Each structure stands twice: as C-alpha cells, then as structure tokens.
C-alpha cells in the first residue's frame, strides 16, 4: 500500500511540488527585492518627471460655484508643492520642489456632481494619464461612487467636499481618505449651540436634498435635537438635487406649525430654497439653521438673510486671527484669486497638502505604503490647528467651526459675513469608526 502511494510521488512529482512550494514562498521576496508587484497605476504613473492627480469637480450644475472654489484650492496647493512654498512646508516638511523629486500636475474634468460622470472621467484619467491619485466630489453621492472605484482600481482617492456619514462610514474604503467631517460630527457640534440659543421642545421643519448627504445629515441633526432637547420634527421636505422651484415644499412648511427651518440643502439648492423661503414670508418668521454651511451662501443670498443664522462649517477665513497657517493660506489665496477662500478651497488645498506630506514621509508613491503612512495617525498642523487621521476609517479628526451670520451693519468688510462662535474639538463628537459598519478592505 505504501508502495502504491510512493509510486505517484515520483521524482517528477517531488520536483514539481518542490518547485511550486519554493515558488510560492519565495515569490513575494523575489518581487520585493526588485520592487513590489505593479498595482493600480503604480509604477507606470511615477516613471517620468511628473506625477498626475485627476480631479473631477462640478463646474456646471447645482454645485458649480463650490466646485470652482475647491478647484482653486487644489491649484494653489499644486503650485505651492511644486515651488516648495513655506506654507506647504509647514504641513509637509519633506516637500522640496515637488514630491519625491517629481513635479505634480493636475488634470481636471467636469463631474456636474453626477456619480457616473465622475467615475467615467476618472477611468479616462487612469487610462490616459496614469493618475496616481484622484480627487473631487462636492456631492457625497460622487464621493461614495469614487470611493468604491478607487478601491477597485487601487488608486488613492482624496475625497474633497463630502459631508455624508456614509463616505467614511458605511462606504469607507482602504484607498479613500476624508478631510472634512461627518454630518454626524456637525450635528453633535451644532446641536448644543442650537439648544443653548433656542431652548428645548421646539418644532422644526427640515429641508433635505434627496441623496446620501441629505438623508444622513438630517437624521443626525434630528436625532441629536429630539433625544437631547425634546425637539419635534414636524415635517421633512425632501427635494431632488437641482430643484429650482421650492414653492411646494415651502407651502408645506408654512402649514406645518414649525418655529425653525433646518435647511440641509447645499450649493445652489440652499441659495434658492432660502431666497424663496423669504419670498414666502417664512424667513424671518421662522428661525433658519444651516447645519452644514455652504461656501458662498452669504455672498449669494446676502447678509440680510444669513444674519443670526447658526451654521457648522469646516473653515471661515477670519480664523486667520487664531491660526498662523490659516493666515498664510488666506493671504496666498486672496493674492492669487482676488477673494478670500471659502471652505471648498480650504478643503481642496488641505487634501493635497496632506497627500504631499504622506507621500514624502513614506518616501514612495507605492500606494499600500502611502496608505500605511496615513494610518500611522501622526499629528500634523492644519489651518484649524493640529489634526490626525483615524486609521480605522480614514477620517481626519479635526475641529468643527460654529459660525453665526453677522448683521450687514456689523460687517467690517465686504466678505465679513460670519462670526466664529466656537471651535469645537472633533474627537469627542465623532461616532465610533464602526458605527456605520465601516470595513476598509484590502491594501492590494
């Protein structure tokens, strides 16, 4: 019987099996010695003198204004990275002129804030330009789509504006990183301020854009107010992205008996819904609250409508009085573009500055190593003080800025729309990384 089994274990079988065994154990070592196995656009995208980042930002449609601001922030960051500007060196000290000796360039496409368009454009950038990182969102629906696309294609995705809980919650991925905060974080930061200013047991009407950002932010804010202060949601008016005429929703709110309008709409939707709420006489009869402030909101609707409005935001330019880096950023930006940056620009700039830091600290463009650098969770400076990434969900831990709209008469200059009420530390406000079922996925 033993003979029978010995027979198949012939010399040939042993050799073949042995070779296989040797092969499987030695394979990573052999490849490792010569450099890791190619992954995504690596190393193809890093062989020349330049590396390219692909941006898909909305330049048309409901979020066009915010997309354009975001893009300007990115362009300024690229300029600073390539010239080794003092500001970028504060955040990424190892950046000289370019990253790891390579100049960085940006290719840009219009996403129209549509997930399909954004993914298609990025696919084109990966094929044609071998982009080593992708960015752009301004709609969480786009961010979630690009998250999954990044994980599939193994190319880093630096989320730009995106406030949904899903982005680094339910839909988190190993290859995606977010700099702005969760809707839930915003809700937990602004909730106490709302209660302190307006009291308990009030009636609120919500206005919600019909996609992941809107639904998650509305739920988070409503949960906070109802559980902690007995507020009642008397109506939730859900409108499609890109609505122009809000009259139906406003009529419903007018009949709801609400004292407050909590407007979660964003971009042009927010501008139009607030202006029309005024036309319907709802403002100032009801108090307006904006849980996630919109860049350019005050500029577009005018300070008459934003005065007294409470909002949570990522950045407001008067933070320059508190943070030296913010001052450098506002000055550089203002000198180049002729206006003070809003938080879209701050977001775009910081995402690129952080990326430059991580790559230069890791000393390689190899994506898994860059990701591990992010996951070290080192503390580094930003425009709003020291921040760090949370390894478990790739979410930046950063403060939330609470602002209140200034009266037109209190404005010190034409862009002095908001007064910074509070800078709330992010860490205690954040839900646990697994609260929304985050599972990051593989490195390779």
């Amino acid at each position, binding site marked *: 019987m033993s003979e029978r089994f010995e027979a198949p274990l012939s010399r040939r079988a042993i050799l073949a099996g042995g070779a296989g065994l040797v092969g499987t154990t030695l394979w990573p070592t052999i490849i490792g010695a010569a450099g890791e196995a190619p992954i995504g656009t690596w190393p193809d995208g890093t062989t020349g003198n330049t590396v390219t980042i692909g941006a898909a930002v909305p330049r*048309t449609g409901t979020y066009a204004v915010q997309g354009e601001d975001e893009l300007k922030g990115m362009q300024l960051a690229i300029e600073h990275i390539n010239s080794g500007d003092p500001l970028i060196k504060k955040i990424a000290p190892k950046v000289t002129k370019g990253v790891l000796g390579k100049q960085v360039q940006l290719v840009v496409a219009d996403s129209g804030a549509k997930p399909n368009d954004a993914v298609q454009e990025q696919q084109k950038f990966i094929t044609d330009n071998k982009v080593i990182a992708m960015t752009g969102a301004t709609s969480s629906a786009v961010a979630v789509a690009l998250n999954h696309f990044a994980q599939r294609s193994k190319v880093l995705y630096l989320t730009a504006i995106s406030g949904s809980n899903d982005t680094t919650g339910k839909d988190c991925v190993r290859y995606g990183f977010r700099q702005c905060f969760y809707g839930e974080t915003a809700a937990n930061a602004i909730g106490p301020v709302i209660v302190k200013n307006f009291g308990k047991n009030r009636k609120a009407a919500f206005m919600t854009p*019909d996609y992941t950002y809107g639904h998650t932010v509305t739920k988070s804010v409503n949960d906070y107010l109802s559980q902690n202060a007995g507020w009642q949601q008397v109506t939730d008016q859900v409108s499609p992205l890109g609505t122009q*005429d809000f009259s*139906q*929703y406003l009529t419903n709110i007018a009949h709801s008996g609400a004292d407050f309008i909590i407007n979660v709409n964003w971009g042009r939707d927010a501008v139009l819904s607030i202006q029309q709420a005024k036309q319907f006489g709802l403002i100032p009869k009801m108090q307006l609250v904006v849980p996630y402030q919109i860049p350019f909101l005050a500029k577009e609707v005018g300070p008459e409508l934003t005065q007294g409005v409470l909002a949570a935001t990522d950045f407001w330019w008067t933070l320059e009085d508190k943070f030296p880096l913010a001052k450098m950023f506002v000055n550089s930006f203002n000198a180049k573009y002729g206006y003070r940056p809003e938080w879209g620009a701050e977001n775009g700039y910081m995402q690129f500055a952080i990326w430059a830091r991580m790559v230069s600290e890791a000393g390689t463009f190899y994506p898994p190593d860059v990701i591990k650098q992010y996951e070290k969770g080192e503390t580094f400076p930003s425009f709003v003080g020291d921040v760090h990434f949370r390894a478990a969900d790739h979410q930046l831990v950063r403060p939330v800025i609470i602002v209140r709209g200034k009266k037109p008469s209190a404005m010190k200059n034409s862009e002095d729309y908001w007064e910074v009420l509070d800078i709330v530390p992010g860490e205690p406000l954040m839900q646990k990384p697994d609260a929304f079922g985050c599972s990051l996925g593989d490195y390779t």
Partner: protein
Amino acid sequence: MFNGLVLGALLALIASGLTIIYGTLGVLNLAHGAMFMLGGYAGWVAFHNTHNFIVAVIAGTLFGLIVGIVTERVIIRHFYSRPPEDQLLVTFGLGIVFVETVRFFFGSLSKTTTLPSELNGIINLGFMVYPAYRLLMVAIVAVALFVLYVVLYRTRIGMIVRAGIEDSAMVDALGIDVYKAFMLVFGVGAMAAGFAGIINAPIVSLSPDIGDAILVQTFVVIVIGGVGSFPGAILGGLIAGEIISVTSMFNPGYSYVMLFVAMTLVLVLRPYGLLGAAGRE
C-alpha cells in the same frame, strides 16, 4: 395647485416661443433654454445699473428679440433646407456657446434681481399665504400669451408667416419678403424665452445653466400639448406644472418620472399631442 399654476404659466410661456418657431419655421430650437437664461442675465445687467425692475423686463425682452433675430440671420437661415439633425446640432451648439459665454463674463455665482417693495409682499388668500409677485406672474404671462396669439394668428404678419410655411415660393411671388417674416418669427420666439427669463429672475436667482432643466421640461410641454400648436403649449404647460407640483407634494423624487409618464401616455393615446394637428410631421 397654486404652485403648479405659477410653474405651469412659466412653462407655457417658454414653450409657446419654442412651438411658434417650430410650428412656423420647422426648426427645433435646442438653444431655447439658453435664450431664456440670456433674457434673465440681460435683465439683471439692466437692473444692476438702474435698479428699476420695469427697465430690466424691457431689457431682457428686447435682448431676447435681438439675439433671436441675429441668430436667425447669421446661422439658422442656412439650415432651413438642411436635414433636421443638422438643425438640432447647430442649435444645441449655440446653446452651449451662450451658456459658456455668460459663465465667462459673469461667473457661476448666482445673480439676484430684487423686486420693488410694492411687488414683494405676501398676500393672504384666506386658506394660505402666497407671494404677491407669483400671483402677478400668472397674470403677466396670461397677457403676454394673449398678445403673442393675436400677433401671430390675427394679424397680417402672422398670416404671411403661416402662408410662407405652406408655400414660400408663392408668397415670394406675391412680392412679400418671406425671409424677413421668418427672421421676425425666430425673433419673437426668442423674445418669449427672454421675457420669461427676466420675469422669472426675481423668483429663481440666475446661474448660467438655469435654462438646462427648463429646456427639457419645455420639450415635454410641447409634446404633451402638440408640437407646433400654440394653444397646445399653454395647455401642456399648465398640465406639466400641476404634475410636477402635485407629485412633489407626495414624493418629490417622482415628480419628473410622473411628467414623463404623462408624456408617454399622451404619445401612446394621441401621438400628435393633445391639441396637435393630426398628420403634422
């Protein structure tokens, strides 16, 4: 229902311009949404400089007329005898050029036209409160549509234009300049869009791509009402306005779905639209 009436009146006005151009010249003008936007911006510029809403309305309307006439003279004229797809492409391209030109000069930040305070009030209708201007807009649109109708269907110019479509050689032989009439029709159609653009501006602040969504809705309106039919555009506009508004009350996500469902139903049951003439191409 009121909200639907206001939206419907606006859609009817824009659609009437589109349908006049198609019904008389046979050109499906895909730049119509952009012309609506241009009227709004021209009005805003006038308003910005004079702070007079009436001046703004006149400026927006006249600018629509001028853009229409110039476009017809320089471009559209060469496409009457070309296949319809050429017309679609050239008007679509024109729309993009208009939008991007405005974006270049004015940026994407929205522009607000504020109403004079006497129009800015809120009226208590007993069962609900409603912005006065929105009510006024229905009346303004009704008057504008009536004037358009009289000009095109009850005057000599209108007769010449309609005769020119049937047999331009014959009208030409009678010593009438058909092409001048065509130019005027295109101008009037664009003027209706421009007028709609500026009277709508105080409700919806302006952005360069404001005409995109409107164009799609307008096409649905004229398909429902009957392509090329002036009364059809009005009926279609009111129906579309009510569908969007009533659906929004229950499930906003489906408001456009319902609009297209209605359009499909109309196409199945009456392929030429509710008030369209059977046999029209």
